[in-house]
């Protein structure tokens, strides 16, 4: 591990990679601040840039920098405008915006910056401890276990999709799975569902799909549904926080770093759930008089979601780097980018290409430091970007999206697919369907089929399900993840109808 740390430090501290971290954080912060553009859109736009660099470490460092930069930037617009740029920072506006209204915008931004820094840094420490441990277990995994693991991942999407969204999330996941079957399959060396179109022979392009799901709809959404945002144009001053305030948020930061990290590790959860849960937990355990403060500008209420969402971002790298399985839409995009760079994330990553693994972790520390430095003294100036008119921004996004889909493949058909799916995705977005499950389904679908086909071949049938205890165990967990929410919903209905609980 020490050796790995040194390799990571060496790689991360090269001039090129340091520039990548700084560039990634800056780009992420700027765009993350703009309401409507989440980390997934930004990363989708940045993928072609990252891939054309050719160096997987640098590419992943850049994209990871963009990711936590975006979460960071999103909190700024949550606090100043009550218009979160990113879903993961919605909870930050609960107490951040009231603070800004009370003229304490500077203090709110400082608390957000410090909480994010602490959450991100502690998360990276936990990643450093847990990823190698998980990785060594995963080395024993056969195709059967990978298949079961992917079933768990897919079930988790449904379980975490939130109330009222479950059906929609399931539909989108299934749609993603269906789209993954286009092209040559693993078992049969023949094209399927290509309708005779040669360009579909190797399936839908991942980058094209990611752009069509996350970049194009965001831009079209901004055009079709313009929101007029007016911030309180007050000066941002007095960034200092007092010693008492620091003491008050310290335990919150500590708890939420750990909780946020583990929520991030779970497939299907992520920064958004971590931040809401973090807010709710801190509110519940706070003393009575402080509970009153929540929602009216409590510093604890701001520190909790800010810590949790950054820790969760880091946590979501655990399944990506150790198992090669994306737990969220953002890590799904990162996985696609890595595969395009000829790197297969998974338990072998740490052995085959330790410099990538450790450099990414090291760059997280550097990135968090960069963001802290960036946010503390410079934030009043950076916040000016919020007044950039949309009509300059939207063509810029459209240009990068279309260029990005074309460059890698030099195939004009990709553009048609991009625009076609982009329009469909925009319609789905208007109907409030989540798009991330589709992309996760698409990515997991292909891998799931491959692993299933291999297991079937190795065991001459589906015997692997009961012959391999680990596979069986994982599939039972998957079943529980699907059944538990509906059981709880039924119990809640029963309770509402006046039936007493057994216990």
């Amino acid at each position, binding site marked *: 591990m020490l050796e790995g740390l040194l390799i990571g430090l060496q790689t991360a501290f090269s001039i090129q990679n340091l520039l990548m971290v700084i560039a990634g954080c800056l780009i992420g912060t700027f765009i993350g601040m703009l309401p409507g553009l989440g980390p997934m859109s930004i990363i989708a736009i940045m993928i072609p840039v990252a891939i054309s660099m050719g160096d997987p470490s640098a590419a992943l460092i850049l994209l990871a920098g963009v990711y936590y930069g975006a979460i960071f930037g999103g909190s700024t617009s949550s606090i100043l405008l009550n218009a979160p740029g990113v879903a993961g920072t919605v909870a930050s506006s609960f107490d951040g915006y009231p603070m800004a209204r009370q003229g304490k915008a500077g203090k709110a931004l400082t608390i957000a910056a410090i909480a994010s820094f602490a959450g991100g840094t502690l998360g990276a420490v936990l990643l450093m401890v847990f990823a190698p441990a998980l990785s060594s277990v995963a080395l024993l995994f056969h*195709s059967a276990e990978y298949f079961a693991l992917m079933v768990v991942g897919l079930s988790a999407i449904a379980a975490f999709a939130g109330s009222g969204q479950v059906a929609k999330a399931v539909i989108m996941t299934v749609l993603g799975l269906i789209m993954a079957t286009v092209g040559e399959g693993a078992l049969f*060396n023949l094209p399927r569902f290509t309708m005779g179109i040669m360009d579909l022979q190797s399936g839908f392009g991942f980058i094209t799909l990611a752009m069509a799901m996350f970049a194009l709809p965001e831009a079209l959404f901004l055009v079709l549904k313009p929101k007029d945002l007016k911030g309180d144009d007050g000066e941002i001053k007095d960034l200092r926080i007092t010693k008492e305030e620091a003491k008050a948020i310290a335990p919150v930061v500590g708890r939420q770093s750990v909780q946020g990290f583990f929520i991030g590790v779970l497939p299907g959860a992520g920064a958004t759930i971590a931040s809401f849960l973090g807010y709710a937990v801190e509110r519940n355990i706070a003393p009575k008089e402080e509970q009153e403060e929540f929602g009216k500008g409590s510093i604890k209420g701001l520190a909790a979601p800010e810590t949790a969402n950054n820790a969760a971002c880091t946590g979501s790298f655990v399944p990506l780097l150790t198992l090669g399985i994306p737990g969220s839409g953002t890590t799904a995009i990162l996985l696609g980018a890595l595969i395009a760079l000829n790197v297969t994330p998974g338990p072998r990553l740490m052995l085959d290409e330790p410099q990538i693994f450790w450099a990414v972790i090291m760059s997280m520390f550097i990135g968090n430091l960069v963001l802290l430095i960036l946010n503390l003294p410079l934030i009043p100036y950076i916040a000016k970007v919020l007044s950039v008119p949309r009509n300059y921004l939207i063509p810029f996004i459209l240009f990068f999206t279309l260029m990005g889909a074309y460059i890698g493949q*030099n195939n004009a058909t990709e553009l048609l697919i991009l625009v076609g799916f982009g329009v469909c995705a925009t319609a789905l977005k208007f109907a409030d369907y989540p798009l991330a499950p589709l992309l996760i389904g698409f990515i997991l679908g292909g891998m799931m089929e491959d692993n299933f086909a291999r297991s079937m071949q190795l065991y001459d049938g589906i015997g692997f399900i009961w012959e391999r205890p680990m596979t069986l165990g994982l599939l039972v967990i998957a079943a529980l993840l699907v059944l538990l929410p509906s059981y709880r919903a039924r119990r809640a209905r029963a309770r509402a109808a006046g039936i007493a609980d057994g216990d």
Partner: protein
Amino acid sequence: MTTIKLGRRALIAAVAAIGLTGPTLAEDQVVDSIHFLIPGGAGGGWDGTARGTGEALTNAGLVGTASYENMSGGGGGKAIGFLIENADSNHGTLMVNSTPIVIRSLTGVFPHNFRDLTLVSGTIGDYAAIVVGKDSPINSMDDLLAAFDADPSATAIGGGSVPGGMDHLVAAMVMEAAGKDALGVKYIPYDAGGKAMAALLSGEIAALSTGFSEAVDLSNAGEVKIIGVTSEERVDAAPDAMTMKEQGIDTTFVNWRGFFAAPGLPEDKLAAYQDAIAKMYDTPEWEEVRARNGWVNIHNSGADFQTFLEQQEQQIGDLMKKLGFL
């Protein structure tokens, strides 16, 4: 008309002159420019071959300028179709391709085959190898065959290609030559080298069929043992690795890479391309590119290339029929 004739004669004369004066004048330009058509995306094996060859040719001064175009789609079929449909306007284009053009034509993935194109030259190649994990009790092909005889179903061989693809065919070819039932070989496909390695080390598969240069890298890293190579003689890069032939398995296989041009390419142009490529092998610029990528020089020009491809088509076609892929 006369000017064209003159041009052609002058070119042939120039070519002949360079050929006679030998490698000292190798920096004399043979072709003005080449446009490389790459049937896959950036970063793949085809991409590396085209760009590496172009780099060596231009740096050595044999070719004035080189340009590159990636045209992915249809497993390479789109680029082949493009070159055939637009043959007249593509006399300055060379398309890179490799063993899959033979396999994929046989399976009918695309409607054309190598006979529809002008064969320029096979340039490099890679042998195939069978490897096992470093802690495996298997140390030779004999051990592997014994394990296969004992329990064919538990002796799965993995590879990085689809069933019926190159790695599968190599594994089947070797088993067939060893007198076993090629159909009884349980072949497990993986979509990437890293995943196949993980499977080998976790014990999911008993052996792995892979490219020789990749096998050498893994063996140098101490992760695998190479138990058989499909070359005629032992290769310098891994002098300890036994060939299949040494172990009584009479089979050889080369995964070649080479260049094709549009159908109906004028003779003089073809000769110029072939000449430029033939001269490239003696240049230090090529040696640098070759060594960097670990390629093996396997040069088959013109008619030799045709014979080689037909032989390979026959060999692979027979095997695929036996395996039920045709």
